[in-house]
C-alpha cells in the first residue's frame, strides 16, 4: 500500500470522529468497537437462529445446531472468507440457468430479432425468439435467487443482495436486461465482502451502471460552433448525483449542486464499448472527456487528468467520513433494526475508517456488537419478499428444480428482481413491506408453498415433515423445521388450535405448512 493511500485513510479516520457523536474522542487507532456480548461463544437456539436470520437467508435443517457447536467467531471467520467454503454443489445446481451467450451476443441477437432476423452479424449465433428472451430473463433471475437458496457462502449472498439494492440497476433500461447477471456475478458478488472502494470502482465501470444512470451519454459541454454543440451533446448529471447521494456520501453528506456538476465533468468519457464490435465493457473515450480543471468537495483535479482522475475521485469518495457513516447506517439497518442504535452506526463507521473500508470487518463489528445482541433486535425486522421466499425454501431443505418461474413468485409478492426503476433499490424498512395487501400475498405464498406449487423449487415433505395425525406433534415438527424450536408457547398453541379437527395426516401437514409460512411469525426475522 502506498504511503499516500495510508495517509488519506488516517486523516479521514480522525475526521470521522467529529461527526460520530462520541463524548470522548480517543486517538484513531485506539477507538474501541461497540462492546461485544459475553454470550457469543455459548449460543442458544434463539441466538443462533438470530444470527442465521440476519447474516444468512435463514437456516437449513441442522444449521442452528451446527452454529451452536461452532460458535459465532469461527462461523463468522468462515463466512467472511467465502473462498474458504467449498461450493461446488451450488455451481452444479446452477448449471441449468447459465447462458452460453455473452451479454453482447444476446444484445446483437435481440437487435436482429427486432429488425426481423436479417441483420444478425453473428452467423454462428442461434436465432432467438421473443420467448427465448423471456426465458433468458427468467433464468437470469434464477441465477441470483438460486445462489441465495443454495450457496453455503450465505453471508456473501446476503451482502450481494444488499449491494444489488445499494447499487441498483433497472433491467428495463436499454441493454441493461442483458447485463444484470454479469453485473451481479462479476462485479457485486466478488467484491461483496472486500474493500468498498474496489466495489465502488467496479460498479462505476460496469456497463449496466454506465447505461442505467446515463454516464455513457455524458459529454464535455461542446464549445459553441463545434460538432458536439451542434449535435447538442453535453453533460449528464444523473450518475454523478446518485454516486454522491446514494452510493457514497448520502443525501446529507455535505455536497452541493456544483459538486454534482464537477463530478459529472470528471467522469465524462467513462463509457461503454460498442456491442456490434466487442463484448460489452468499460471504455474510456478521451474525446468525450472534459480535460479542464475541476474541484470536487474542495479537492482540485488539475487539467489533463484523463481517466485516472475519475479513479482518484472514486477512491476519494469511498474514503470520505460521510461515506463511512452512510454505509454504516445502512448496514446497521440491514442487520440490527430499521432504526439502528447510534452505537451500532458509530462503531461500524469507525471500523470502516480504521479498516480502510473493509466490508468484512464492518460486518464483523456489527455481528459482535451489543446492538445486534440486544433483546429488542430479535425478530424485530420484517422479511422482504425475497427473504421470505428464500428462508422458506431453506427451512424446508428445498432446492432449485429446473423450473424458471420463481422470479414470477417474487414479482407477485411485490419484489421483482432487477425491476426496481429508481436508483435507491428496494426499501429496507419493514413498513414498506407490510401492508394489508402485502400480508395477503404472503398468506397466498404460504398456501402455494404448502401445496408444492411454487414453480422453480421443490422440497421433500416426507423427509422434513414426516406424516403424523396428531396436531400437537405436527405443531412441534413445524416449530423445529421453520422456527428452529423457538416458536414459543403462545404462537405454538395458536397454531395447534387451527389444526384441530383435521384428521387426515396429509391435510394436517399442508395446512400446518401454509399457516407457518404464510402466518405472522414467519414474516419476522
Amino acid at each position: 500500500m502506498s504511503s499516500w493511500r495510508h495517509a488519506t485513510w488516517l486523516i479521514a479516520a480522525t475526521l470521522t470522529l467529529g461527526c460520530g457523536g462520541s463524548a470522548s474522542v480517543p486517538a484513531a487507532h485506539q477507538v474501541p468497537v461497540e462492546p461485544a456480548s459475553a454470550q457469543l461463544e455459548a449460543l442458544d437456539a434463539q441466538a443462533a437462529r438470530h444470527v442465521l436470520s440476519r447474516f444468512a437467508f435463514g437456516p437449513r435443517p441442522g444449521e442452528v445446531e451446527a452454529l451452536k457447536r461452532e460458535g459465532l467467531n469461527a462461523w463468522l471467520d468462515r463466512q467472511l472468507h467465502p473462498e474458504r467454503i467449498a461450493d461446488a454443489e451450488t455451481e452444479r445446481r446452477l448449471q441449468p440457468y447459465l447462458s452460453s451467450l455473452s451479454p453482447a451476443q444476446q444484445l446483437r441477437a435481440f437487435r436482429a430479432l427486432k429488425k426481423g432476423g436479417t441483420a444478425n452479424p453473428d452467423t454462428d449465433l442461434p436465432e432467438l425468439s421473443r420467448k427465448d428472451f423471456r426465458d433468458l430473463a427468467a433464468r437470469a433471475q434464477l441465477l441470483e435467487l438460486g445462489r441465495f437458496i443454495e450457496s453455503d457462502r450465505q453471508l456473501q449472498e446476503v451482502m450481494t443482495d444488499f449491494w444489488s439494492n445499494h447499487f441498483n440497476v433497472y433491467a428495463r433500461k436499454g441493454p441493461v436486461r442483458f447485463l444484470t447477471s454479469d453485473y451481479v456475478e462479476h462485479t457485486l458478488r466478488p467484491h461483496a465482502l472486500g474493500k468498498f472502494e474496489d466495489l465502488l470502482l467496479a460498479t462505476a465501470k460496469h456497463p449496466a451502471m454506465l447505461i442505467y444512470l446515463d454516464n455513457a451519454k455524458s459529454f464535455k459541454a461542446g464549445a459553441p460552433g463545434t460538432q458536439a454543440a451542434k449535435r447538442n451533446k453535453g453533460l449528464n448529471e444523473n450518475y454523478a448525483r446518485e454516486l454522491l447521494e446514494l452510493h457514497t456520501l448520502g443525501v446529507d453528506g455535505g455536497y452541493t449542486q456544483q459538486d454534482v456538476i464537477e463530478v459529472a465533468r470528471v467522469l465524462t468519457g467513462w463509457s461503454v464499448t460498442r456491442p456490434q464490435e466487442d463484448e460489452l465493457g468499460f471504455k474510456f473515450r478521451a474525446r468525450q472527456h472534459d480535460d479542464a480543471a475541476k474541484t470536487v468537495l474542495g479537492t482540485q483535479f488539475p487539467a489533463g487528468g484523463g481517466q485516472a482522475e475519475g479513479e482518484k475521485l472514486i477512491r476519494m469518495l469511498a474514503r470520505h467520513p460521510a461515506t463511512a457513516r452512510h454505509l454504516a447506517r445502512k448496514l446497521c439497518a440491514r442487520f440490527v433494526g430499521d432504526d439502528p442504535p447510534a452505537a451500532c452506526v458509530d462503531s461500524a463507521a469507525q471500523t470502516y475508517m480504521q479498516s480502510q473500508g473493509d466490508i468484512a470487518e464492518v460486518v464483523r463489528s456489527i455481528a459482535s456488537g451489543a446492538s445486534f445482541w440486544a433483546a429488542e433486535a430479535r425478530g424485530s425486522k420484517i422479511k422482504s419478499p425475497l427473504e421470505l421466499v428464500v428462508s422458506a425454501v431453506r427451512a424446508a431443505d428445498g432446492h432449485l428444480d429446473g423450473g424458471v418461474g420463481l422470479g414470477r413468485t417474487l414479482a407477485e409478492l411485490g419484489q421483482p428482481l432487477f425491476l426496481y426503476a429508481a436508483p435507491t433499490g428496494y426499501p429496507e424498512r419493514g413498513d414498506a413491506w407490510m401492508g394489508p395487501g402485502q400480508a395477503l400475498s404472503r398468506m397466498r405464498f404460504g398456501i402455494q408453498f404448502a401445496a408444492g406449487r411454487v414453480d422453480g423449487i421443490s422440497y421433500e415433505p416426507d423427509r422434513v415433515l414426516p406424516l403424523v395425525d396428531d396436531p400437537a406433534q405436527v405443531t412441534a415438527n413445524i416449530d423445529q423445521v421453520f422456527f428452529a424450536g423457538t416458536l414459543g408457547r403462545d404462537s405454538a398453541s395458536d397454531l395447534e388450535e387451527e389444526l384441530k379437527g383435521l384428521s387426515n395426516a396429509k391435510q394436517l401437514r399442508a395446512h400446518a405448512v401454509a399457516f407457518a409460512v404464510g402466518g405472522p411469525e414467519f414474516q419476522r426475522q
Partner: protein
Amino acid sequence: MNRRAFLGLGVGAGVSLGLGLGLRTAWAEPAPGGGAPPPQPRPVLVVVLLRGAADGLSVVVPHGDKEYYDLRRQIAIARPGKAQSAIDLDGRFGLHPRLAPLKAAWDAGELAPIVGFGSPDPTRSHFDAQDRMELGTPRVAGKAGAHYQSGWLNRIAGALGIADPLGAVALAANMPMILRGTAPALSLESIDDFGLDAPAQAKSRLEAGFERLYAKARRRSPRIGDAGEVGLKALKELRELPPRASAARYPQGALGDNLRDLARLIHGSDALRLGFVEVGGWDTHTGQGGASGGRLARSLDELGKGLAAFREDLGDAGSRVVTLVMTEFGRTAAQNGSGGTDHGHGSVALLLGGPVRGKRVLGQFPGLKPDELYQGRDVAVTTDFRDVVAEIGQEHLGLKPSAVFPGYTAGGGVGAFA
C-alpha cells in the same frame, strides 16, 4: 417425489396460477337482494403521483414565452397551430399534444392545471423529494421543519374517520409512503388478483385460520397483525363488489388497469374516499423527445388516455371525485447534453373532476428568464403543494388544514373551487 402427492389441500391439475379465480366465482353468485336505501355519496380524492420528476414545461407548455423555445431547441413543443403542436388553453399555455384526450375535460370546465407547482424543498434527489412530498415534510430555509411519521393521505384518512379497509386504497404492489400511518389503508395491485388463491375445499378454513392467527399476533407484532387482519377484511368486502363492465377505453398498462379498478371501487363501494395511483418513467435524462417519438410523449400518451377514460368511466360519480396529478419536482428549464432534461425544481400539477372550477390555468408562472429561474437553472416554485392539498382538504373534503399538516400555516391556495 411426486409433489402433487403432498398437496393434501386437494389442488387439482386444472388449477394453475389463475389468481383470484375464487373471487370471480364468488361474484357469479347473485348479489344479496336489498331494500336498503342507497348510501349518501361522499366526496372522493384520487392522487396520481408521477414518480421520477415529470417535466412540467412539456405537460403544460408555456408557448407564449420566447425563452422556452430558446432553452429547448430540440425538445420544445411547437406553438399551437402547427402539426404536432401544443393544444392552446388560454393563449399563453397549452397542453402537450399527447394530452389531447384531456381537452374535453378542459372544455367542460373540469380541468385546471397549476403552474409553478411543487415543493419548496431544495433537494434534487428523487427519493428524498418523493418521501418529503408524501409525508409533507419539505425543508424550507429558515423555518422549523415538520417531522410527521405518516403520509398526508393517511392523515386525511384519519381526519375523515375512515375505519373501513376499502376507505383508502392504493392501487400499488407495495404500500406507498403517502398512505403509511395509523389509519387503516390498503394497497393492492389489482382487484382481480387480490385473494388467497386457495383451493375451494380448504378456502374457508385457511381464511378463518389466518384471520385468527394474525389477530392473535397483534400482541407480539402490531404491524404484522394489523396488516393481516385488514387484508382479510378487505378481501371479504371486495368479494361483495359487483362486477363492472366498463365501456371506457383505458390504455394498456398498469396506469389504465389501476384507474379502471379505482373507478370500479368508487362505483361499487360507498366506502372508498381516498385513492392513490403511481406511475413511473418520467426521469427523462436522455431521449426525452418532443411532441412525438420520445419517452415523454409515450408516457403522456398513457397518462392522457388513462385520465380521460377514468373521467368517462366515472360518469355521474365524477361530480364527487377530485383527482390531483403531481410529481416530486420538475426538470431543468434547459435541455441537457443528451436530448433530455436533468433534475430541477418546480413543475405542474393537474386538478381534475366535477367539483373543480376548471378551464383556468391556476397558480403563477414564475417565468424562464435567467433571473427568474430557481438557482439560475430550474422553474421556480410559486405554489407549495401543501397549500393545494390543504385547499382540497378544506373545500372538497371539509377538513381543517391543521388536520392534514399539523403545525403548518397553509397559504391561500389557488382558488381551485372558488
